[in-house]
């Protein structure tokens, strides 16, 4: 059941919060192999449910009163272990909640366990060496994507009403696309990052993984503190389908879903045209230099003093980042400025961009490369190729399920202007509607 429907049913007392939580817990217990949670909901969650039940009985209000929301385990939760998917922080019990957790609690939500992630959120496979290899609920032989993989699993497998995630190169949108749910990475800074363990200071975003676009919209209001947007008229909006070399290497089944989304939007009265943004070709290098340097700055002491406390893949990334020169970082920021300028110019001509979220469907766990006609590409690189431009630019980006390819979910991405979440969500809702037909 979507989060908005859960909230309504609880308010109307058509649903008991205790029964609801029991149903979620039963699903968590039934699928331990998916490794959705690092710290499953425990006694503290039960106490919150009991208090929520009493408040509902007293007819108190709250947009999310009694609604269980799972939290990616890099957001600090007061008194609840926050590991960031690592061995280093395996016993960290923060003294305060992250700002997003505070906002959820204020809305009446129940903090419902801490979800699995790639170690320190630094990777997209979610094969966590300390807390277990997370598995895709659609096909457990496959990766759920990451780094917010546990949150996507929990949403898709019906273990919570919705979940929080973070996104530095695609970490909300990638698992949302590979598992089949909605992932919103809002405009940079729209949702506070205080109390979120950093990965890349200039690239990090906090956001949500949900069953529906309406759920994403409500959670965005709560997390950002912005009022509900006035209704957006989608008819006549201008959609730019991103073409060019960055979108050329794509599995045919995924490409077909993007074309279907473009056709559906045209049928719904939107004006769809192709756009090319050559500067997107610089994304991989720009993101690589920026993220490697920033993450290694976060981990500067630990990677030198205790390198064996990291899993192999994260250790190599952090060691590499320690070698990035200041000159390279500056060059990357110059490229980043040009990418931002190019995107600004495109948004003079269109209102939203449309492209695939990932060029491939969920890879089999352990697969390292994807083979295209002329070349091979590392799977990690392929997965972030279409998402990371919008971490570099900070623009809002939404991944919406849009059918399947070979029996696996496909997500399409809607990207908007700075702070234009209302249009992004409105176009996402149009796609959601026809994708369900």
């Amino acid at each position, binding site marked *: 059941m979507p989060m908005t429907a859960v909230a309504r049913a609880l308010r109307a007392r058509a649903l008991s919060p205790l029964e609801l939580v029991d149903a979620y817990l039963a699903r968590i217990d039934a699928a331990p192999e998916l490794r959705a949670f690092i710290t499953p909901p425990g006694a503290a969650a039960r106490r919150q449910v009991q208090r929520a039940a009493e408040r509902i009985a007293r007819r108190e209000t709250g947009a999310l009163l009694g609604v269980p929301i799972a939290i990616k385990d890099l957001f600090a939760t007061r008194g609840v272990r926050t590991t960031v998917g690592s061995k280093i922080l395996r016993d960290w019990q923060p003294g305060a909640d992250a700002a997003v957790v505070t906002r959820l609690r204020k809305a009446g939500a129940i903090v419902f366990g801490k979800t699995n992630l790639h170690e320190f959120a630094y990777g997209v496979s979610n094969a966590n060496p300390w807390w277990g290899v997370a598995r895709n609920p659609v096909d457990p032989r496959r990766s759920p994507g990451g780094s917010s993989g546990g949150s996507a699993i929990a949403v898709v497998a019906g273990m919570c009403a919705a979940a929080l995630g973070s996104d530095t190169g695609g970490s909300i949108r990638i698992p949302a696309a590979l598992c089949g749910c909605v992932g919103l990475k809002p405009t940079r800074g729209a949702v506070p990052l205080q109390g979120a363990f950093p990965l890349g200071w200039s690239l990090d975003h906090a956001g949500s993984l949900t069953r529906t676009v309406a759920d994403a919209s409500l959670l965005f209001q709560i997390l950002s503190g912005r009022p509900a947007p006035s209704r957006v008229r989608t008819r006549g909006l201008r959609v730019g389908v991103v073409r060019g070399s960055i979108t050329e290497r794509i599995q045919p089944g995924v490409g077909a879903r993007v074309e279907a989304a473009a056709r559906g939007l045209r049928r719904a009265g939107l004006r769809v045209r192709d756009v090319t943004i050559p500067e997107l070709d*610089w994304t*991989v*290098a*720009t993101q*690589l*230099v920026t993220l*490697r340097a920033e993450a290694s700055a976060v981990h500067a002491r630990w*990677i*030198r003093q205790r*390198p064996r406390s990291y899993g*192999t893949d994260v*250790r*190599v*990334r952090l*060691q*590499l980042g*320690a*070698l*990035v020169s200041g000159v*390279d970082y500056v*060059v*990357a920021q*110059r*490229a980043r400025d*040009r990418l931002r300028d190019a995107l600004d110019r495109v948004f003079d001509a269109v209102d939203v961009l449309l492209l695939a979220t990932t060029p491939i469907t969920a890879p089999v766990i352990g697969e390292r490369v994807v083979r295209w006609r002329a070349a091979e590409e590392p799977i990690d690189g392929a997965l972030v190729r279409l998402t990371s431009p919008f971490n570099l630019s900070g623009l809002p980006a939404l991944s919406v399920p849009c059918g399947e390819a070979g029996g696996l979910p496909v997500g399409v991405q809607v990207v908007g202007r700075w702070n234009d979440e209302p249009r992004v969500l409105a176009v996402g809702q149009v796609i959601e509607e026809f994708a369900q037909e």
Partner: protein
Amino acid sequence: MPVTERDRLAAVGRAAGLRLASSDLDRLLPAWKRYIALVEELRAQVVPEPIHGDD
């Protein structure tokens, strides 16, 4: 003795204060090579405006 790329990487790593075991170097070397190639491409794209009278 010729200096190999691996030697150079080990030296750069030491200068950065990293403790790189032999197995670390094995894993880091391909990532380092890919990094260098990407950065060179990026530098070629983001060239400064020409400065006259200073050559």
